[in-house]
């Protein structure tokens, strides 16, 4: 599984392109001319794919290595991606589509990755959902009418959550629809398309 012509290079301190990055980039429906934001972009594969589809793309991350790498790669490919260093959607206006592959690994405080940039990409807090919910709290005010969120989510094998994510999302006013899945040895990956009820 790959996206032809898009191969962001592996960089130190940047989460590399993996199955989750590919699934998000290939499952998000982005139309030409739409305003698209990718939050926590990392290597920025989904941003590059959206820009290639003709969308107007902003990519955000806290990680300066990720942003510098994505900017260089977008220039090399002749694609326009505005790279912005910020926390999630802070400082962004409103979009037709917002893409996010959040850090989703359940991580007790004592088990954080020693490299702070790797920890930022992986550590989802004790329940794996900390950053996801912080993002979803701010997302509605950054969506244009009818706007969609494309969220990468993983079911880690052997871990049974108290409540499935789609039911929690429903309670929080999101209508969730699966638009992509991939089964891996340790986890089931899914991309959910979320719209406000």
């Amino acid at each position, binding site marked *: 599984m790959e996206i032809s012509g898009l191969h962001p290079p592996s960089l130190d301190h940047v989460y590399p392109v993996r199955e989750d990055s590919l699934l998000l980039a290939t499952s998000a429906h982005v139309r030409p001319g739409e*305003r698209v*934001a990718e939050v926590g972009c990392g290597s920025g594969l989904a941003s590059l794919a959206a820009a290639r589809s003709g969308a*107007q793309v*902003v990519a955000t991350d*806290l990680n*300066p290595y990720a*942003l*510098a790498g994505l*900017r260089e790669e977008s220039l090399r490919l002749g694609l326009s991606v*505005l*790279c*912005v*260093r*910020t*926390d999630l959607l*802070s*400082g*962004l*206006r409103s*979009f037709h589509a917002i893409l996010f592959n959040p850090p989703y690994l359940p991580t007790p405080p004592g088990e954080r990755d020693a490299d702070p940039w790797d920890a930022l990409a992986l550590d989802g807090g004790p329940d794996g959902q900390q950053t996801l919910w912080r993002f979803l709290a701010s997302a509605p005010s950054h969506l244009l009418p009818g706007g969609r969120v494309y969220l990468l989510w993983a079911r880690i094998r052997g871990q049974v959550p108290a409540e499935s994510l789609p039911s929690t999302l429903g309670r929080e006013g999101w209508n969730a629809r699966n638009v992509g899945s991939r089964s891996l040895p340790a986890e089931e990956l899914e991309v959910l398309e979320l719209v406000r009820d």
Partner: protein
Amino acid sequence: MELLCCPLCRGDLTLEARKEAKGEILDGTIQCTKCSAKFPIEDGIPNMLPPELR
């Protein structure tokens, strides 16, 4: 710039370029027209973090 706003008050932003190439600002300053907060652009990347986190 129409995709960005002030992270503190959501005000409109103005741009001041120090170094430009191919119609793109490489180094400069973004300023909020409402609360006057300033944010640097370095190597083509706006930094919208609050000063203490830059």
